[in-house]
């Protein structure tokens, strides 16, 4: 494969001049080759390996990959025979940095993991630290956490479906409708936490700022308007023949492969496996709410789309109940110290049902003020490992749609 060309350190020129010089050399070489063989040199545009297989590299700046992500696709005619996802372009060394900073200081960095759902990232990290240090969370804080997590789930699923349609060629209309609703939810986050996407709101043992009644009323009004939006969205998309033909039977994932590969979230439930952490782990106070888990049968792109739409409807049910029953009371466990927080040595694994799947934080503490080991279980990356199995046999147009249905965010894949 292409070995990385090492730039000799000892050269006197700076690396930029070195690159420029090598580049000019290669252009003159190409020009000479032209002259030698007459102007009609066989063009380089069809790099064919031996048996007519066309190597197509989609990304990292391909218009339809969600962020910096490359797929080396080998295509025989129109059919895909090999697909190698290449990621790591957005790797920011999050876990090693976390080992060098205090527990609280890592909280704002968790916003940047899956930058679509910062509040669920915060909650997963807070849950892990609370398990590590054995901190109790007051009632009102638990309700606030459930409300914010379900709001995050709604805006993430809406955006995911919008991007899926964008990959299928609908020129932005479903995406704009999804973003219109998402803006309302982000405004709610801004009024509460101060920032639309980088909320940094949850603390170990509760939340940072209390929820005002005015905010709760706005939330109730928003949740009341949500079913009408989902009905409109479904009227535009669900029975649309072109969408059905483009999505049904594409990128089917078998349940046993999904379970073995560790796929979680809407992708797993679309294959029919009934695994939702809110029902399995009983974390937070989800047991107090009555809601159902939508399951698909075929595990193809259409099922993933439908599972996300139905999950938005279920999230609306949860929000209605939570907003009705939220009690008054403290939002922060008074015992937790803000600075100099040193949990006793030990390890803990806190996981929640993030919109993309099972998001887990594994912490080992050696008694110091920063974790000995800090590991994130990224649902996007693990769901991505089965991308090749889903894409084999389909053609290039489907690869883009299948990638859209996996709903990855590169911040979480690369960390």
């Amino acid at each position, binding site marked *: 494969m292409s070995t990385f060309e090492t730039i000799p350190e000892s050269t006197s020129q700076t690396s930029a001049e070195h690159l420029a010089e090598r580049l000019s050399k290669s252009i003159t070489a*190409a020009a000479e080759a*032209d002259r030698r063989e007459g*102007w009609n*040199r066989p*063009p380089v*545009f*069809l790099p064919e390996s031996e048996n007519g297989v*066309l190597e*197509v590299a989609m990304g990292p700046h391909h*218009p*339809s990959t969600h962020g910096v992500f490359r797929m080396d696709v080998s295509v025989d005619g*129109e059919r895909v025979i090999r697909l190698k996802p290449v990621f790591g372009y957005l790797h920011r060394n999050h876990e090693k940095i976390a080992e060098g900073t205090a527990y609280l200081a890592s909280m704002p960095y968790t916003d940047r993991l899956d930058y679509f759902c910062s509040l669920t990232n915060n909650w997963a990290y807070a849950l892990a630290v609370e398990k590590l240090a054995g901190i109790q969370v007051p009632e009102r804080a638990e309700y606030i956490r459930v409300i914010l997590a379900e709001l995050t789930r709604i805006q993430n699923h809406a955006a995911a479906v919008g991007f899926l*349609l*964008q*990959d*299928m*060629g*609908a*020129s*932005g*209309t479903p995406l*704009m*409708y999804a973003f*219109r609703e998402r803006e309302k939810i982000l405004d709610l986050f801004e009024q509460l936490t101060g920032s639309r996407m980088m909320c940094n709101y949850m603390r170990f043992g509760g939340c940072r700022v209390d929820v005002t009644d005015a905010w709760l009323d706005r939330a109730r009004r928003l949740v009341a308007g949500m079913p009408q939006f989902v009905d409109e969205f479904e009227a*535009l998309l*669900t*029975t*649309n*023949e*072109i*969408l*059905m*033909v*483009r999505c*049904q*039977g594409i990128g089917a994932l078998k349940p046993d492969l999904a379970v073995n590969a560790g796929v979680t979230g809407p992708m797993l439930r679309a294959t029919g496996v*009934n695994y939702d952490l809110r*029902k399995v782990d009983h974390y937070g106070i989800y047991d107090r709410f009555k809601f*159902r*888990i*939508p*399951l*698909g*049968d075929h595990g193809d792109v*259409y*099922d993933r789309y*439908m*599972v996300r739409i*139905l999950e938005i409807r279920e999230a609306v049910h949860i929000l209605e109940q939570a907003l009705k029953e939220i009690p008054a009371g403290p939002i922060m466990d008074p015992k937790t110290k803000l600075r100099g927080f040193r949990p006793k040595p030990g390890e803990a694994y806190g996981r929640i049902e993030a919109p993309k799947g099972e998001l887990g934080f594994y912490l080992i503490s050696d008694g110091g003020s920063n974790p000995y080991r800090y590991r994130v279980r990224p649902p996007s990356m693990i769901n991505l490992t089965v991308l090749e199995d889903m894409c084999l046999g389909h*053609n*290039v*147009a*489907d690869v*883009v749609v299948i990638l859209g249905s996996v709903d990855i965010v590169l911040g979480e894949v690369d960390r």
Partner: protein
Amino acid sequence: MAATFDQIFILFRNWLVHFLPPAWQPAAGALLGVIGIVAVFPGLFALTTLLERKGLGRMQNRYGPNRVGPFGLLQPVADGLKALTKEDVVPFNANGLMHLLAPLVMVVTVFMSFAVLPMGRHMELVDMDAGLLFFFAMGAATELSVFMAGWSSRNKYSILGAMRAVAQMISYEVPMLLSSVAVVMIAGSLSLPKVVAAQNHYTGIFPHWYVFTPWGFGAALMFAIAAIAETNRSPFDLPEGESEIIAGYHTEYSGFKFALFFLAEYLGMFALSGLGVTLFMGGWSAPFSFLTWIPSWIWFFAKVMLAICVFIWMRGTLPRLRQDQLMNFAWKFVLPYSLLVLLVTAFWRFLPPGWERWVVCTVILAVAYVVMGRAAFKLKRVGPRSYRYAE
């Protein structure tokens, strides 16, 4: 008064031409006609780009361009200037001559196909006996220019895009021809003004447009689908499918040559909607008998703009079909249905006029449409699904 206003352009041309010596008058008249077309339609193209972006915007709950000039009216001018001033990059080992020739051939052939369209009473540039055949002959030449564009830019994506575009245009040209043959069977002539004349009478206040007859509606539907596919628009715009192959055959074009491709696409849309309007919606005849005092060319351009709005509406709503689905749809649904429409048109022609032929034709077409539609979906096991829930 209404008649003079209706023929205002013809009178203006005759008035201008009579200054010249008689030997040159026919040539000058034709030249003025050409100048008219070459001025009006690119102007309409500029207006349509703005209309498209504002229409799409409004469909997506946003304004659309409104910064350049009042209500964004100068936006096309800005786009035009940008296209003119942008650097025209030609790939390193591209085939220079063909790279330049491709957009020119496309624009020229599309402009020539306007010569035959009757834009108003006596306002067709050339009244050809085989006008419809001339229109499709010009349509056939655009495929060649797509090939020249795709091949000459020596880029793997543009080759793929060109092959897809030509395959799509060929497979949708057949049903388009067949559906217009149905009109010829009833109108009895290939010359477009005669087709419009055949539709230009009323019972009560309703016009005799072909689209209101069962066979006409079927043919118009197939013609519309084929026209959308022929101009690579909305559900069939796979050749420049941004998400897969970057921009299809005009990837390697920039600057004014790219603007020419853009112009050719829109002119193709005008030409095909003009033809569709002429064949099925009575060309320049007024929609109701009491409205005939409005000049005929206003009706023609109103109907064409209506058709353009439907193009834009489709683009704002529908996702894109995949290449093989698009071809299957052409050969396994649109073409058979067009053949059936031809059969039904024959029934319509040789059955005595009366309500029986209405019933017979409508039933055949409706039943066939539903049965073929359901069979197409059943074959691919596609259809709405129900979902189970777990507690």
